[in-house]
């Protein structure tokens, strides 16, 4: 977590100091990918500039994180497809697994793989599980999954090897919205457990573009 904080601090500095020649950056767990135009800045000059910023990154204080509330329906096995088997593996009642998962606050380390997919830490140790032995070929978007020390939310239909505990009716990626991506690196995420009726109500509002996510 300390390493990832430094990665995001370095990215923040690179963006705000507008380093010449830098095109874009991709933060991940423990590295920052910097795309640059070698016709504008040489490799050695860029490395020197980045090394200087990396030293400063140790001391920089990042802007306060956004706190994003994600409604999540755990109770319906149609949505939380692995809640019961995961709870069994952990020796917990399903309700308790859902309570523990929703009770934690998660940090978005980075967004990657598919558009808008957050890689998050903050999982309570009691609910950690190795990934599925056989990954699914299709996981529906909005599925909230856990595997190892990670929690992620699938943003588009894709293959996946995480245990799916529930599903959020929000869209993490909506190509038709003016701002297609919901979460950003550094966001704090809190899940709010909802029942199937509320899930359906919010899902309908999301389709009608009348739902506003709770972001503090």
């Amino acid at each position, binding site marked *: 977590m300390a390493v990832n904080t430094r990665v995001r601090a370095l990215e923040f500095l690179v963006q705000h100091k507008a380093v010449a020649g830098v095109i874009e950056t991709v933060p991940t*767990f423990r590295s920052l990918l910097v*795309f640059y135009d070698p016709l504008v800045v040489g490799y050695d000059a860029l490395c020197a500039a980045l090394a200087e910023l990396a030293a400063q990154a140790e001391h920089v204080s990042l802007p306060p994180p956004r706190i994003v509330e994600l409604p999540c329906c755990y109770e319906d096995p149609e949505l939380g497809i692995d809640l019961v088997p995961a709870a069994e593996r952990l020796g917990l009642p399903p309700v308790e697994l859902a309570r523990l998962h929703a009770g934690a606050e998660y940090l978005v380390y980075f967004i990657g*793989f598919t*558009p808008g997919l957050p890689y998050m830490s903050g999982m309570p140790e009691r609910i950690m599980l190795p990934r599925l032995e056989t990954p699914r070929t299709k996981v529906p978007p909005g599925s909230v999954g856990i595997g190892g020390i990670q929690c992620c939310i699938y943003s588009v239909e894709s293959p996946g090897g995480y245990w799916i505990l529930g599903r959020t009716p929000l869209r993490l990626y909506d190509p038709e919205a003016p701002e297609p991506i919901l979460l950003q690196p550094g966001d704090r995420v809190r899940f709010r457990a909802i029942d199937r009726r509320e899930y359906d109500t919010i899902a309908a509002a999301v389709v009608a573009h009348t739902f506003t996510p709770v972001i503090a």
Partner: protein
Amino acid sequence: MIRVLEPGAQTTVQDLGRPGHLRYGIPPSGPIDRTAFVVANRLVGNADDAAGLECTVMGPRLEADAPCAIAVTGAEMPVTVNGGQASAWQTLILKPGNVVKLGPARAGVRAYVAFSGGIDLPLVLGSRATYLRGRLGGLGGRALRKDDRLTLFPAPLPPIRRASAAAIADLTVPPEIRVVLGPQADRFTEDGIAAFLGGEYEMLPQSDRMGARLKGPRIEHARGHDIISDGIALGSIQVPGDGQPIALLVDRQSTGGYTKIATIGSFDIGRLGQVKPGQRLRFRAIDLAEAHRLLRHWHASQMDVLEEA
């Protein structure tokens, strides 16, 4: 206005792409063969970033309802206007009712069609490029369909010009693709690196705008094929557990957890994207200084590619 009579196998609207969104998992998209795309735009008097079409394997049939100029570049697809043979890599003037057709590719994979003025579609995150997997940009985030209509920005007709022979690559020969080793070249054995640089790799039919899947001598890992996920550059060559390379292209995933043996120079991405399934290619390692020299040369060579027809 351009009417789509037949869409072709996979024809998408592209411009020079949408950099700046990889940190949200959104790839840049844009044409795979950037040189061919830029030359097409210049032949019709457009800015380099005007939106045109990328046509894959089998081209479309299009009808113009007003006078306009077009140019076809890239893969060698036979071009006809109202059934009569027409030249690629040259400005063509269409009259109202003219039908232009691009046939199946004889060499190469991707042809480009530019229209004077460029295709008028809304900018999505700063670009008109289509990202098919993300259903983003272009025409509703999808490939063209029969009866689609493309509106063009108004523009005067340009002078008739053609591309100089030097701008046109020979797509029939197996290319040598130049790479800079790394960032995880140390995760492969010496034999693995030697296999990668010494062998011939065949393009597989599963290849697409996300990645080129290749088959050839197995590239041996030194210690495991997984890394802690990190960012993926244009032209990154991933090698998963099966030892077969995957070169990642313009619609790539932004991050990944497989070891990357090398990165292809941007100047050779277009050539790689024109290798047909079943055709072969080789890799050659160059150092970073050489790569930057070639990049400068590539940019400079695009400056002066047109001549009077």
